[in-house]
């Protein structure tokens, strides 16, 4: 049975390096990906992850377990990101109008795009979002951190976190729309009108029943 983070932290606080090594092995991939997604540089992300764990080890005695170890670790990573990108702090606490961060027209898309292509397109687009959006989206979807936990990591109000996530997703929706408009008329038509697509099919099947049930 896998030992919990809390138990490993307790042992590591007594100086048990093996316990800390287990924590490193368990969380280094996530910590590394947080850094990599924000910085976009492999070598820098490696240095930052290394530094974050060393700081975590040195500050472990001050960790009282009020938050999860991951939340605390991501906070360290975030603080290191702030050192590297000083403007990030300012951008995290302010919310500019959505129009100001709308992307440039995206490249024409292939004539046909299926769900996989759409997801691949979105994976490419998400790396081009502003750093603050990449950061909140990573924290939200990498390990399912709650809004409250993300707010604790970033040291911003929970409402700000929700706004950033909403706007980031809104941006990705807008980019999809432009992508469709750019060169995939048939695909757009299918996405908009094809009631046989899984989502719409389910909705189309469910709605009449709901309406009937609702009178």
């Amino acid at each position, binding site marked *: 049975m896998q030992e919990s983070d809390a138990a490993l932290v307790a042992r590591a606080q007594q100086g048990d390096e093996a316990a800390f090594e287990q924590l490193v092995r368990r969380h280094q991939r996530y910590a590394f*990906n947080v850094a990599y997604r924000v910085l976009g540089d492999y070598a820098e992300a490696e240095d930052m992850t290394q530094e974050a764990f060393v700081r975590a080890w040195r500050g472990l005695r001050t960790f009282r377990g009020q938050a999860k170890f991951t939340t605390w670790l991501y906070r360290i990573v975030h603080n290191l990101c702030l050192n590297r990108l000083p403007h990030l702090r300012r951008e995290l606490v302010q919310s500019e109008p959505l129009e100001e961060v709308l992307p440039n027209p995206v490249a024409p898309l292939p004539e046909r795009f299926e769900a996989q292509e759409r997801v691949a397109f979105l994976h490419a687009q998400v790396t081009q979002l502003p750093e603050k959006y990449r950061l909140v989206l990573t924290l939200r979807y990498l390990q399912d951190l709650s809004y409250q936990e993300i707010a604790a990591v970033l040291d911003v109000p929970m409402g700000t976190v929700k706004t950033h996530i909403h706007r980031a997703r809104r941006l990705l929706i807008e980019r999809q729309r432009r992508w469709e408009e750019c060169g995939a008329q048939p695909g757009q038509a299918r996405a908009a009108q094809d009631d046989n697509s899984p989502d719409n099919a389910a909705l189309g099947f469910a709605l009449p029943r709901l309406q009937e049930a609702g009178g």
Partner: protein
Amino acid sequence: MHHHPGSCTDVRAALQAYVDGDLSPEQAAALKRHLAGCSSCRAELARAQAVVTALKTWPLVPEPPQLTGRIMAQVSPRLDAPRFRLHWSDLVISLSGAALVFGAMLLWRGLLSTDQAYLCAARIALRAHVLRLEALRLLQRLSHAAVPGWGWLSLAGGACVLVLALGIWGRVPLPTQRRGR
């Protein structure tokens, strides 16, 4: 939150909450009623769902293979290069030694300042001088008794014999040790 989203604008504002399952059953039902008759909003829903799917499947980049080792090399003091650290014990020993030397010096100065102590010091110096003279005389007698030049050689030989004797004596078990066997 809009309880009865009717227009496309209202529906689109609520779509993300709908995708996340954050709408109440009433809100969700009203939204679905709108979606049933609006292909444009259905397309928007498909986009919102695709975004969530993409974010949930955002691929993880593998970390560098030696990352754990590098982290632990910095964490573990065994693998660290030895770092200079000042221990309290070092400081205490150094200060004590300095204080002892300083105290001895003061004592010596104080003793020399009295006639009695000065006399005592003079006696010690005189004894030392006499001993030195006696040793020189003994050496001179030994060198005259033997072949000239053999005095020093005999002294060195004697010293070697003495050292050997001491070494052998040191290896011989003491009576108590013999009993112990």
